């Protein structure tokens, strides 16, 4: 995950809006040469004569709070009160808005400064308009609460009254704008409730699935349980004869990754009628050639590969073989974790209307431009003919980075000749996912007498082809403790994959945290060291690897140490606990954020695990933009990790996913959600995102707490509590 560096080569664009007012935008210098049209709603800010400021939220909202936090950046530098701000979601339009992706926890990282410059640019134009009108130097004017003031003459004017005049001025040079000093912030750093909260609480239409169009019909799309299958036969006549069913037809596969899968579409007057008709299709599938993947088969293959020489060597620094031979103690252990589903509560859905070669789409998507490309390719229409409305997503977690449901809706709507809302059933959603891949790690470490790790080897068993890893199934060469152990060897072997995989919250790291920080815990106990002290020793003196703090392959041991110590202090690390209760600690760096978690767990004699509390310390740079949303993200991310560790696994039987609904894929429940105390450590680094990095340290902290409570080391997720019986 590299190459996300914020572009500093941008220019402000501005113009008048109908009815008198100002709009302002920001265009990358190198993207497109055509000037933006003032008539188009393509700017970040619109200021109306009545002083209402409309800020366009550029990114998809999946619950990470960017519809609130990113506009806050603009409003701060514009110097308006949040109460006079209205938020409007952007259309998908990369040319105007730049990257519009909910992924990689990158919104804050990429937008913290550019969006402030957008606000500052608009403010500068309003000041210039006021100064020109009053015949005073702009430097003598100040702004606050949506007003420009000139102290010398006692004059003031509202932004609304200045907007038309400002619209005639040339936009300032974006690079020369002076931004506020943090101590002057009025909005950034203050808790601001989500801008959609009231509409959510009152049940107003808001989410993708809430879309309704005139003449719209409802669709289900029946697909093969084994990916890659095609329709051998389906009783379309029986389905079409049912009351309320309008159409039923076979959809052929389009071919190509992430594109349209084969299946049968049923179009009806309401979704329930379409879904009820589904069993009557009695669809027979032609299954794809080749062996069908099973979890049992994968586990056997992983064991076979682990016993054989690794297929690839990824890192080999020092001499791990010699170091293991010379170690005073060696420890070997194998860890594994299962496939996971994203299971957002709003099932995949999309509404589409096709008129001639124009396609209009209403989608809950994390990656609209990728969807546009896919729809353009599969339907054979120019990308510019596709309009994508980015609707609020009922959860994302990475699932909506791929857009199969968007292509399906567009194809089905065109074939049906009416606007169509396609909704996947929960069972569709669970069985047609892009899974977090399972994996196996075969670890060995050597220890010196002083408790130093002298050697670390990992034979990673994953999925992929001869040359590469499957999507989200790789491992980065810098994954901790790389660079912190002198003799370090990382190798890998892969087996083929027959189901699609994808990015789940803190991809790869969500599993690596568990593996690495559990094994480190084993090593601490192997030498009789305190798990906190052992980690402090491993991190050593503060040092930094990588280009800068925005380098995904970097590592700052000082930042890791600070959050580790903070979480330990918050939890009262070292305190004595009753029998079968324990504290576990872990830390992890991912998505540019450093997090440490301490779990306090109690294990009953029947093995049942109760997590009493979690303490979490995180460092995502020098500024938390919206402390309310930030706290929510961290608490949610940590509890998400807890829920997945305690009960979630997707298994494959005969090539198909065995789990179907929340009955066999349990989510964490309120009664099982412990308190999560969170502290943000501010460090002198650029602010970065929070959707993902809080997750990975929690599963190992839980497993380590269970070990502290019981002496049983659980090396596989989900944690098998049956092994914990007294």
């Amino acid at each position, binding site marked *: 995950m590299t190459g996300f560096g914020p572009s500093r080569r941008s220019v402000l664009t501005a113009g008048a809006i109908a009815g008198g007012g100002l709009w302002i935008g920001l265009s990358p210098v190198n993207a497109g040469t055509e000037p933006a049209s003032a008539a188009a709603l393509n700017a970040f800010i619109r200021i109306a004569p009545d002083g209402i400021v409309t800020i366009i939220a550029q990114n998809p909202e999946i619950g990470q709070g960017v519809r609130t936090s990113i506009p806050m950046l603009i409003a701060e530098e514009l110097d308006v009160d949040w109460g006079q701000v209205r938020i409007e979601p952007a259309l998908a339009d990369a040319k105007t808005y730049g990257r519009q992706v909910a992924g990689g926890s990158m919104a804050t990282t990429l937008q913290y400064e550019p969006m402030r410059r957008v606000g500052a640019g608009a403010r500068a134009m309003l000041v210039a308009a006021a100064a020109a009108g009053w015949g005073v130097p702009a430097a003598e004017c100040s702004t606050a609460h949506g007003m420009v003031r000139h102290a010398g003459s006692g004059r003031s004017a509202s932004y609304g009254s200045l907007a038309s005049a400002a619209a005639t001025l040339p936009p300032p040079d974006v690079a020369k704008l002076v931004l506020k000093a943090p101590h002057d912030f009025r909005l950034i750093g203050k808790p601001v409730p989500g801008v959609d*909260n009231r509409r*959510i*609480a009152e049940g107003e239409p808001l989410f993708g699935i809430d879309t309704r169009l005139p003449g719209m019909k409802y669709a289900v799309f029946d697909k093969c349980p084994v990916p890659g299958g095609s329709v051998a036969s389906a009783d379309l006549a029986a389905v079409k004869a049912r009351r309320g069913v309008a159409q039923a037809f076979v959809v052929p596969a389009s071919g190509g990754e992430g594109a349209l899968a084969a299946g049968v579409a049923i179009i009806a007057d309401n*979704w329930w009628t379409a879904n009820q008709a589904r069993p009557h299709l009695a669809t027979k599938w032609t299954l794809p050639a080749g062996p069908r993947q099973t979890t049992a088969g994968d586990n056997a293959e992983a064991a076979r590969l682990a016993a054989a020489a690794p297929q690839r060597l990824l890192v080999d620094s020092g001499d791990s073989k010699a170091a293991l031979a010379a170690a005073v103690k060696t420890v070997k252990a194998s860890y594994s974790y299962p496939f996971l589903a994203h299971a957002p509560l709003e*099932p995949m859905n999309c509404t589409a209307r096709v008129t001639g070669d124009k396609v209009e789409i209403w989608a809950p998507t994390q990656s609209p431009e990728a969807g546009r490309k896919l729809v353009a390719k599969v339907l054979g229409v120019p990308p510019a003919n596709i309009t994508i409305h980015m609707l609020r997503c*009922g959860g994302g*977690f990475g699932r909506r980075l791929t857009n199969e449901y968007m292509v399906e809706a567009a194809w089905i709507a065109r074939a049906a000749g009416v606007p169509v809302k396609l909704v996947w059933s929960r069972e569709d959603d669970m069985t047609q996912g892009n899974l977090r891949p399972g994996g196996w790690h075969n670890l060995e470490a050597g220890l010196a007498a002083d408790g130093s790790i002298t050697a670390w080897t990992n034979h990673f068993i994953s999925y992929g082809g001869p040359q590469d890893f499957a999507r989200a199934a790789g491992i980065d060469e810098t994954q901790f403790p790389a660079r912190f152990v002198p003799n370090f060897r990382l190798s890998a072997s892969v087996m083929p994959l027959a189901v699609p995989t994808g990015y789940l919250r803190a991809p790869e790291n969500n599993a690596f945290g568990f593996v690495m920080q559990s094994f480190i815990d084993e090593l601490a106990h192997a030498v009789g060291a305190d798990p906190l002290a052992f980690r402090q020793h491993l991190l050593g003196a503060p040092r930094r690897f990588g280009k800068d703090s925005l380098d995904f392959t970097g590592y700052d041991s000082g930042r890791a140490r600070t959050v580790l110590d903070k979480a330990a202090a918050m939890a009262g690390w070292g305190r004595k606990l009753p029998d079968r209760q324990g504290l576990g600690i872990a830390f992890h760096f991912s998505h540019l954020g450093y997090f440490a978690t301490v779990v306090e767990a109690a294990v009953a004699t029947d093995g049942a695990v109760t997590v009493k509390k979690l303490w979490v310390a995180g460092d995502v740079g020098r500024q938390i933009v919206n402390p309310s949303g930030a706290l929510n993200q961290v608490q949610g991310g940590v509890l998400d990790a807890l829920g997945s560790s305690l009960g979630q696994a997707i298994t494959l039987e005969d090539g198909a996913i065995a789990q179907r609904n929340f009955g066999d894929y349990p989510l964490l429940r*309120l009664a099982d959600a412990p308190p999560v105390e969170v502290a943000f450590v501010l460090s002198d680094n650029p602010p970065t995102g929070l959707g993902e990095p809080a997750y990975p340290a929690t599963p190992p902290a839980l497993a380590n707490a269970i070990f502290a409570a019981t002496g049983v080391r659980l090396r596989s997720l989900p944690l098998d509590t049956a092994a914990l019986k007294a």
Partner: protein
Amino acid sequence: MPTRLRINNKPVTVTVDPDMPLLWVLRDELGLVGTKFGCGAGLCGACTVHLDGQPVRACQTPVSAVGTAAITTIEGLSASAMGRKLQDAWVSLDVPQCGYCQAGQLMAAAALLKATPKPGDGEIDAAMTGNLCRCATYTRIRQAIKLAAGVTA
């Protein structure tokens, strides 16, 4: 055959299959899309509505089973003082992340406070544990119920 319903204090007549779950009558036939589809199996609580003040899963309630019971959906929650208090607490404590489950959470919470105006943690657990939140906003859900109920956290 037309089915007569009373939804949020308004009479409504629909002509649908009597087996059609109330969820889909609300969403697709009447355009009341605040009530959410999550699982279709009574496992997640996203579709929680009230029948005569009792919380039910609309996805598991055939429209023919409603009879003369008064239906309250999230769109009608603010008609009661307690409903408004809960909504205000949800907004001010910034409960939602994605927000998709929150209509169901609010309806479950409203039913809880109607039966138990000053709930303890155990009563909150029992009433709310059938409502899944994939974003795990449970800490704030609990706080918001207590705020609306005037119970000290």
